[in-house]
């Protein structure tokens, strides 16, 4: 068991238990900045935890970050752990992080899909979906990024439970999704959602379920442009950016579209590295470089949110 944030190996992939233990360690080491919220449970009754970074205050506006909605995208959970640690390291040191946390809260769900993640460690490294049983089908799981109530059932999602993009029987059927929906709606003041995936080196924004530009298209595009430029400045990793529908393909039922349609203007989704060599199997030696280059891009978005209240 990893018992200290100073001895935890951020350059290695970890199991669910190791990461959940580390969450406790992070909270214990920084009790005035970080707390752990239990926002629900997965289909297989694992707890769903969210880290809350807060310097106090009440009813503060907030930024939501998440990693690992697709369980096989291991670089994302690993980047999540590194980033959560970076936030506590930089508070009080980096002026941007300090300014953000002095007036806003950050919520961070590092393992959105714990059942799938545990399954990738025990049984099938390439598992993507949740682990819910589908009535009348031998195939298990729902794609939790096609399960949101935004263009649910539209293009780019499947009605076939055996498909990797199976949308589920109805919107928010997955407890992993519903728990986030309830939390964000209950909070009422989440101003930005950044959902992290891998791997095609993109920074995307709404819409995915329709091709018309989002009302804030121009502003989101400008934010994305700066973010990918600052990301590329670290190691030269080139990202593309744009709306989901324009940049990759139409995809109904995604988290960022749901967030945008529910008033969260600054909704983005990252697709982290790879350049076409490893796909979901990015070697652990690339965790820290990936997280390091992603950090300034995340910070750009968060600073923009701070400086553009609405």
């Amino acid at each position, binding site marked *: 068991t990893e018992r200290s944030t100073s001895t935890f190996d951020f350059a*290695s992939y970890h199991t669910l238990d190791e990461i959940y233990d580390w969450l406790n360690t992070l909270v214990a080491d920084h009790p005035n900045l970080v707390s752990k919220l239990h926002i629900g449970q997965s289909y297989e009754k694992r707890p769903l935890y969210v880290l809350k970074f807060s310097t106090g205050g009440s009813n503060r506006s907030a930024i939501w970050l998440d990693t690992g909605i697709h369980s096989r995208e291991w670089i994302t959970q690993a980047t999540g752990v590194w980033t959560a640690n970076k936030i506590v390291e930089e508070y009080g040191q980096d002026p941007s992080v300090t300014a953000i946390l002095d007036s806003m809260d950050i919520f961070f769900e590092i393992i959105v899909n714990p059942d799938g993640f545990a399954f990738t460690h025990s049984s099938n490294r390439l598992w993507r979906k949740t682990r819910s049983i589908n009535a009348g089908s031998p195939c298990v799981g729902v794609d939790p990024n096609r399960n949101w109530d935004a263009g649910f059932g539209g293009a780019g999602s499947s009605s076939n439970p055996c498909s990797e993009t199976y949308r589920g029987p109805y919107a928010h059927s997955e407890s992993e999704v519903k728990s986030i929906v309830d939390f964000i709606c209950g909070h009422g003041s989440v101003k930005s959602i950044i959902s992290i995936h891998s791997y095609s080196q993109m920074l995307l924004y709404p819409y995915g379920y329709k091709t018309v530009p989002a009302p804030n298209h121009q502003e989101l595009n400008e934010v994305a442009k700066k973010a990918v430029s600052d990301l590329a400045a670290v190691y030269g990793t080139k990202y593309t950016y744009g709306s989901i529908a324009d940049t990759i393909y139409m995809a109904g039922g995604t988290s960022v579209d749901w967030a945008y349609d529910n008033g969260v203007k600054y909704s983005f989704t990252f697709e982290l590295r790879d350049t076409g060599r490893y796909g979901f199997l990015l*070697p652990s030696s690339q965790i820290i470089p990936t997280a390091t280059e992603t950090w300034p891009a995340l910070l750009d978005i968060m600073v923009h949110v701070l400086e553009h209240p609405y």
Partner: protein
Amino acid sequence: EKLFVGDQVLRVTARDEEQIALLRVLGERTELQLDFWRHPARPGLPADLQVPFPCLQEVKTFLESNNISYSVMIEDVQELLDEEKKTMNKSRR
């Protein structure tokens, strides 16, 4: 534990909409148990396709007979998984 010995991931680049449609039809053949790591989206954008070892020949023949260009992105998925596990165990020790 599911093993992926001999499975390959092919990086496929369709040059037009017709080839993209062909790739989608290929992906719907459930008996092949293909898994698009990156879905075919538009001409010129790569799609990555994990192909189980027993279906490799059939899939490659399909691509070649339809003049769809591809390269092998991962030669053997299981080799990478074994390496990943070894690295994790080493780190844990």
